[in-house]
C-alpha cells in the first residue's frame, strides 16, 4: 500500500480525474449553455442514453469474463422488429411481444456462448458472425421493409394489428417526480438494470467468479468453478440486456423501423470502455459503464445546446473514448507491476 501522503496527485488523478472532468463539464455547460442546468434537461440526458446504457451494461458482463459481444446492436434491432412483428402482424399482446423478445435475446446469448465455449470460436468472430446473421434475419419476414399498421405483407394481405398502449407506455410514459410527468419509464429501467448488474457483479460470488475468470481462467477452473457455465451466462445477460434495449426502442418509435439503431453497438461499447477509466477501476465495471454512458450524453446535450452541428457528434464520442482509454491504459497500468 502506498502511504497516504504519497497517494500523490498521480493516483488521485487516476482515481477521480474522470469524475472531476465530468463535474467540470456540467459546470461549464451550466454557465455557457442557457437552459442546460435544470431537471428537464437532466432527464433529457438520461433519456437519450438509457437504451445505449442498458446495452452497455450487458456488454460489460461479457467484458468481465474477458469476452466481447459484437452482436448486441443487432440483437436490439432484432428485438425491435420482432416486437413489431408480434403485435402488428401476428396481432398478439404486448406481453407476448415482450416475452418473445426477451426469449430471443437469451437464446442468441446462449448460442453465442456455446459457439465460444464449445465450438471454440474466438469471441469477436463468433459474435461478429451472429451480428451479420441477425441483421439479415430481421429483414426476411417483411422483405426488408419497416413494419407498421396498414402495410402490405409479402402475401398480399394488409397488417391490422397495432402497438398496444401498454407497450407504448414502456417507451413514452413519464412518471411524476416532484415535477409533473418528469421521468420517462426507460430511464427508470436503465437505473434499475444498472443497479441490478452492479449488485450482481460486485456483491455476489457469481460476479466475483466472473471477474476471476476474466483475470485468470485456468486458475479459476482449477479452483473448481464451472468456467463454461459462467461464460455462457455472461453472453445470455448481454443478449437479454440488448433485447430490453430493443423493446424500449420499439416502444419509443411505435413502429418496426428497419433503419433504427445503427449506432447502438458502437455507442454502448464506447460507454463500457469509458467506464474502465471511472474511479481508476481499469477493468469493466457496472458503475463505470453507467457513468460512461451519461458522460457521453452530457457532452452531446451540452454541445447541442451550444449549437454544435449534429454531424460532429461521432467525432466528440470518439475523442472522449480515446481520452478515457489513455486514462485507463497509459496512466493506471503504468503504475502497476502487472496488467493482466
Amino acid at each position: 500500500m502506498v502511504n497516504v501522503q504519497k497517494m500523490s496527485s498521480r493516483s488521485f488523478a487516476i482515481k477521480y480525474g474522470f469524475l472531476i472532468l465530468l463535474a467540470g463539464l456540467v459546470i461549464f455547460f451550466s454557465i455557457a449553455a442557457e437552459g442546460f442546468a435544470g431537471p428537464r434537461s437532466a432527464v433529457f440526458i438520461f433519456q437519450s442514453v438509457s437504451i445505449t446504457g442498458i446495452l452497455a451494461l450487458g456488454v460489460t458482463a461479457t467484458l468481465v469474463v474477458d469476452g466481447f459481444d459484437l452482436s448486441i446492436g443487432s440483437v436490439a434491432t432484432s428485438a425491435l422488429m420482432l416486437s413489431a412483428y408480434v403485435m402488428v402482424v401476428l396481432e398478439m399482446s404486448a406481453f407476448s411481444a415482450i416475452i418473445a423478445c426477451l426469449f430471443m435475446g437469451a437464446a442468441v446469448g446462449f448460442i453465442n456462448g456455446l459457439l465460444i465455449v464449445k465450438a471454440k470460436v474466438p469471441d469477436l468472430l463468433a459474435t461478429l458472425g451472429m451480428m451479420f446473421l441477425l441483421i439479415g434475419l430481421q429483414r426476411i419476414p417483411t422483405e426488408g421493409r419497416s413494419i407498421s399498421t396498414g402495410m402490405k405483407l409479402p402475401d398480399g394481405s394488409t397488417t391490422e394489428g397495432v402497438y398496444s398502449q401498454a407497450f407504448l407506455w414502456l417507451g413514452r410514459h413519464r412518471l411524476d417526480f416532484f415535477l409533473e410527468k418528469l421521468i420517462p419509464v426507460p430511464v427508470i429501467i436503465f437505473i434499475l438494470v444498472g443497479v441490478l448488474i452492479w449488485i450482481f457483479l460486485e456483491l455476489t460470488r457469481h460476479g466475483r467468479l466472473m471477474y476471476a475468470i476474466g483475470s485468470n481462467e485456468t486458475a479459476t477452473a482449477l479452483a473448481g468453478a464451472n468456467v463454461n457455465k459462467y461464460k455462457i451466462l455472461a453472453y445470455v445477460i448481454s443478449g437479454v440486456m440488448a433485447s430490453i434495449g430493443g423493446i424500449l426502442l420499439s416502444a419509443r418509435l411505435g413502429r418496426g423501423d428497419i433503419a433504427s439503431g445503427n449506432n447502438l453497438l458502437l455507442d454502448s461499447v464506447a460507454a463500457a470502455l469509458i467506464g474502465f477509466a471511472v474511479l481508476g477501476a481499469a477493468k469493466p465495471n457496472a458503475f463505470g459503464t453507467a457513468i460512461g454512458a451519461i458522460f457521453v450524453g452530457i457532452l452531446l446535450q451540452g454541445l447541442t445546446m451550444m449549437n454544435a452541428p449534429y454531424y460532429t457528434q461521432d467525432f466528440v464520442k470518439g475523442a472522449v473514448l480515446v481520452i478515457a482509454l489513455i486514462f485507463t491504459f497509459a496512466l493506471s497500468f503504468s503504475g502497476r507491476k502487472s496488467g493482466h
Partner: protein
Amino acid sequence: MSKIACQISGIVKSFGPNKVLREINLDLPAGKITALMGANGAGKSTLVKILCGVHQADAGSVFLFGKSFDPISPADAFKSGVVTVHQSINNGVIPDLDIVSNLMIDRLAEQNSGFFINSEKLKKEANKIASAMDININTATLVRDLGPADKQMIAIARAMSHSPKLLILDEPTSSLSENEAKRLFVLLEKLKKQGVAILYISHRMSDINSIADRIVAMRDGTISGLFEDKPLDYEGAVTAMLGQKLSQAAIKTNKGKRVVLNLEGIKLSDSSTPFDLSFYENEIVSITGLIGSGKTNLASEIFGLNNNSKAKMTLNANSYSPNSPKEAIAAGVFMCPKDRASNAIVSEFDISNNLALPFFKRHSKLSFLRNKTLRKNAKNSIDKLGIVCQSEMDSVTTLSGGNQQKVMVGRWLAEESSVLLLDEPFQGVDIKARRDIGLQIRSTSDQRATLIFVAELDEALEIADRVIVLHEGNLVGEFENESKNIPEIVSSFSGRSVNLNSSSYGT
C-alpha cells in the same frame, strides 16, 4: 580442440540483499558439452541470464575467445555469438510461419534486406541451413504443424545460422520424447565437432550420460563441483548439487493406518507400466522424479483433469472417479497447482479474494459475498503462514514470490480436505518461505493424506514421511524417508534402477 571458448571469472550478482551468485569461476571449452546442474535457487538461471544479456553482473568478467564480453541486451549477446535456446520452445519459433521464414527471420529483420521478399533466394538459403543440420523436412511446412523436437531443431538451426561460439540450452529435452531427444543429441554432437562450446542445463541422467563431456554442479551461488573424468560421476554431482541439505525434517512416527486414497492401475503414459499406490491418513508423501517423469499426470489423474482415466480410485473406501476439479473438490480432494502465475493467481484480486477463491460459497449468504468473513479468513491465513503484507486488501501482485506462493497454498489449507495435492509448492520460493510453507503443511496434515509433487530431491526429503520416485511414467522406487535409505533414493532418482539403454544412443 579444448581451447577455452568462454571464460567466466569472479561473477557476482545480487538482487537487493539477496546474493544470488558469489564469485563464479568457470571455463567452457570449445567443442565440449558442459552439463550444468543445480537445485532451485542455486543461481543457474541467473548465470544463464548474465551470459545471454538479460542481467548484468555486479562484478567479475566474461571472456569469449579472449575478448571481453559484456552484453547489455539479448540482441547484443546474440550478435557476439552467444545463443540461448530457452526451455519453452515457442519463444524460439514463430508457429504461424513456414520453416523458411523461421530460419531466415533474422535476415528479414536486417535493415538492408530490401523491401520485397525474394522467396527463391530465401528458400535456397534456408534449405542450405536445414540440410547442414540434417533437417529433412519440407521447408514449406508451417512450424506449428511440427512436433516439439522438430520445433526445437528449428530454434537451434535458426541460432546456428549465426555461427555461434557458445550455445546455451536450458532443459531442452523437457518436452521431448526419448526418440526426439536422440535426434537432438545427434545434432549436438555435430555442433560439438564444429567447435561450438555448449552449456547444457539438465538434471536428466539419460541426457547427461549420453552427451555430457563434463558436469558442473552449482549450489547457493557457487560452483560446488566439477566432474571431468570419465565415467562421469553423476551421483557425486547430485550430492555436490544438494550439499549438506540432504537432511530430513522431523518425520511423523504416528503415521495413520487408515487408507485415505487408493489407486489401482494408474498408467501415466502410453509406454509406461500401470502401478498401484495407497496413501494413508496423517501422512505426507513426496512424489518425485525428473521433469517428464509423470508427476503432473498423476496429480491431474487424482484431481479429475484426465477425463479418460482408466485408473480405479477409492477415496475413504468409496469409489472415486472425478470428471472435473469441481467434482474432486466436492469430494474433498484439493490441489494446489504448479506454476502459480498461470494456474493459480488471479492477479486482479486482492489477497483475501485470492485466498477464498475456491470457497466463495462458504463466504456468502444467498450468493451475496460477505466481506467480513472473507477478511477474517484472510487474516487467519496471513497469521498462520506468516504472509508479509500491509493488509489483506492489498493486490496479490504487490507480494513477493514466496508470499504469493503462501497465499496459493493457504487457499487450500483454509478448508479441511481428505487429500491435499501440492504440485511444486516450493517453486520459485526462498528458503525461509519454504520452511514456513512446509511447517504449515505438516501442522495441518493429521486428518488427511498429503501428496507433494516435487522435481527437486532435497525438497522431497525435507518434508516427506515417504518418498515415491517416478521415472518416465513408471514407479521406480518407494522408500520410507530414513537416512539409511538416502543413497538408494538418490540412485533411483537418477534413473539408475531402470534400464535406460543409455549407451544405445548418442556417443
